[in-house]
């Protein structure tokens, strides 16, 4: 029993580390295309979109590389134009605990892909699927919903708010330390 446990521990560590550090840049067909059924309605009870768990979700959600890529794209695609570094402006804030359409990575991916009423455009044609997953993973990290060992660190920019890896929860946001 103790031996089994002793073997299990490094194995778990190994899996966690591998998942965090993997750097696949080519879409992996084995993971599925990320296609989800087209939404019938845009509003779901309880704010949670009932979406089938995609295989891709797991490989992006806790992966350090993909999240930091998502952070780069967030800035490259000028998401801050509406979401102002996650603080909110024309679009809703992404750093608080309020999720209009659910906080799961699938929901965020669907939001980017299909857009939402009141201004969020659809990027389904303009952003490749993997990059949407990366953005979705990063947006989750913005709200402090990613493991801190994988969440992106600060950028070499002006300090706006503590970086995502330093968010214990959304409550301390905007206040430093």
């Amino acid at each position, binding site marked *: 029993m103790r031996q089994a446990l002793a073997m299990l521990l490094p194995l778990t560590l190994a899996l966690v580390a591998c998942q965090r550090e993997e750097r696949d840049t080519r879409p992996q067909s084995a993971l599925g295309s990320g296609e989800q059924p087209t939404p019938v309605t845009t509003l779901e009870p309880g704010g949670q979109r009932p979406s089938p768990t995609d295989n891709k979700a797991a490989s992006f959600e806790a992966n350090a590389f993909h999240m930091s890529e998502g952070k780069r794209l967030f800035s490259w695609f000028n998401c801050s134009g509406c979401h102002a570094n996650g603080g909110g402006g024309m679009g809703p804030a992404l750093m608080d605990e309020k999720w209009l359409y659910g906080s799961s990575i699938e929901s965020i991916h669907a939001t980017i892909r299909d857009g939402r009423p009141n201004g969020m455009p659809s990027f389904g044609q303009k952003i490749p699927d993997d990059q949407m997953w990366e953005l979705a993973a990063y947006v989750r990290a913005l709200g402090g919903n990613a493991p801190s060992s994988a969440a992106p660190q*600060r950028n070499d920019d002006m*300090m706006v708010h*503590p970086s995502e890896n330093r968010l214990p929860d959304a409550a301390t946001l905007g206040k*430093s*330390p």
Partner: protein
Amino acid sequence: MKQRAAADLSGLPTFGHGPRSPTWWGTLGFMALEGTGFALAAGAYLYLALSWPAWPLSAPQPNHWPGTIVTILFVVSLVPNHILHRYAKQCSMVPVRIGLVVMSLLGIAPLVVRWFEFPALNIYWDTNAYGSMLWVLLGLHTTHLITDVGDTIVLTVLMFTRHGYSGRRFGDVGDNVFYWDFVVLTWIPIYLLIYWAPRLG
């Protein structure tokens, strides 16, 4: 290989104070490397300060009072520290015990004030590089302070046990005195750098 006796060591003492003892040299070695670390951290501060004309990057000035109180406590503590040293060299137990208790208290006192020094910097480490360097310098010194105070307390307890009646333990007391001097000495330039350098520009 054949041997012939050429010297007799049987009359030698079994311990020595100060530079006669290897521990003193070891302590000196660690001071040298830690001092280098302090110097490089201070050098990094100065490098950044000299590369940016706007230093200290429009940050508010730190409140120097907690730091000044710490400095005064440090300087005052040097007196009992060196009295303790004299008694340690004489290997007299009672004054050494008293001295160690005093030094433990005089170590804890600046540590308590140090707690208020961090907020008195008036800047966080993640505000800008100036704030980062202040926290680094203060943190680096605090690490040494905590280590030495812990060391002093353990040694104090030790000297109250039967193990204390040994020349090497008295030697350890001497080395502890030596290290405390180092902690105080390294603080002076850091104090000036943290609290008075920003006031220059």
